[in-house]
């Protein structure tokens, strides 16, 4: 009985972590598109001078564990540059920079899967390269990229829990705080796990619905 009252007392505190976790995930997905898409375009259409730095960026951010990236930026790089950022902002930015590295490769694959002939055809109709990319290549490739891109959601969601290490008050941090306060361990951790799992599969359901809506007609949905 005591256990139930403890759970009820602390549950609202835990639930507020959902917003924080969600904020981390959304800003990471958003930054991933904003930075990742230009990087993908640069890797496909850019000169060597553009491609090589992007390649190094992707190699660096995909090769390091998220924990090391968080420590590096939170304790090292940002304070070293004189930025005094909150743990949440650092967490969101680092997840976003890393997400951009992963997502740029998804976008790159999708852009390359649009036949080269279309670019040639667009240019022969008098479009310049930029116009062809914007109005011919991207509308198709973004729809092709969507299934792969939505698979980033569960990855980022589960990675966001590592922001515990720099003290962002997301779900896992709050669960650990409650455990330290109440000495109730398993029920709290399992409740947090349940919330993560619901967010994970619930979010995927929504993303699949969107995928079906904007799939290229006749291409089958999500079968890529």
């Amino acid at each position: 009985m005591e256990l139930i009252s403890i759970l009820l007392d602390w549950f609202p505190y835990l639930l507020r972590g959902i917003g924080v976790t969600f904020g981390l995930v959304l800003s990471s997905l958003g930054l991933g598109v904003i930075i990742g898409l230009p990087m993908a375009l640069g890797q496909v259409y850019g000169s060597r001078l553009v491609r090589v730095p992007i390649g190094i960026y992707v190699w660096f951010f995909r090769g390091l564990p998220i924990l090391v990236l968080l420590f590096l930026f939170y304790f090292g790089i940002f304070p070293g540059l004189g930025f005094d950022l909150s743990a949440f902002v650092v967490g969101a930015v680092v997840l976003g920079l890393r997400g951009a590295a992963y997502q740029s490769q998804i976008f790159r694959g999708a852009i390359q899967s649009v036949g080269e002939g279309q670019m040639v055809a667009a240019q022969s109709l008098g479009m310049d390269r930029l116009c062809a990319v914007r109005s011919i290549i991207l509308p198709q490739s973004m729809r092709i990229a969507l299934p792969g891109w939505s698979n980033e959601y569960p990855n980022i969601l589960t990675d966001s829990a590592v922001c515990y290490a720099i003290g962002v008050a997301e779900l896992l941090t709050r669960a650990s705080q409650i455990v330290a306060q109440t000495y109730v361990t398993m029920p709290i951790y399992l409740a947090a796990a349940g919330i993560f799992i619901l967010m994970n599969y619930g979010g995927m359901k929504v993303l699949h619905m969107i995928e079906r809506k904007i799939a290229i007609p006749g291409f089958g949905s999500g079968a890529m």
Partner: protein
Amino acid sequence: MDQIAFLTDILLPALQKGLIITLQLILLAAPFGFVLGVGVAVGRQYGGPVTRFLCKVLVYFVKGCPLLLLLFILYFGLPSIGIVFSAFTASVFGFILCNGAYNSEYIRGAMLSVKDGQMIAAQALGMTRLQAVRTIVLPQAIRRALPGLSNEWIYLIKYSSLAYMITVIELSGAGKLVATKYFTYTETFMAVGVVYLFLVTLTTLAVNAIEKKYAVPGMIRG
């Protein structure tokens, strides 16, 4: 001058100790993760209703909840019901579960790509189901799953760093201790990062060679 002394006398010895623990974590978890992956995939595909259900729950739970939370459950949670692991053992168990769950998805996908007719043909030749799975389906499936499995090995290298969060002083943990003590965050974590990049790049090259060697002849590789 000072910098060099810091590097050779303090940072590198600490990272070397950490690296050994990291390698122990990875090398212990990877083989068992592979075995668990095969077991769960076969269980979900050919098991009875109960086995199938249990395997499915395991995969959904492990894939749905963050690995860090899984480690907390294993290390901080289980003692409350009387099961006590050392931090190192808990980490290895966590990595095996995580690696195994993801591996099983790749292997199951690959098993589905082996045509049903082969199972029927094998049984027509007098093999039991188990024999057919072991000698006909799995050898093909594992080769087809290899690109996915090697991705998971690379992930394993990176998420082995999470063991530090439950007090295992592996590579990142060793780095964190040095960085905090000598206030050299950027340098130290860059050095730690270089070691991880080296491990990941080396593993990528190795698995590419393995993939090429074990690719099914005549199949076009993606």
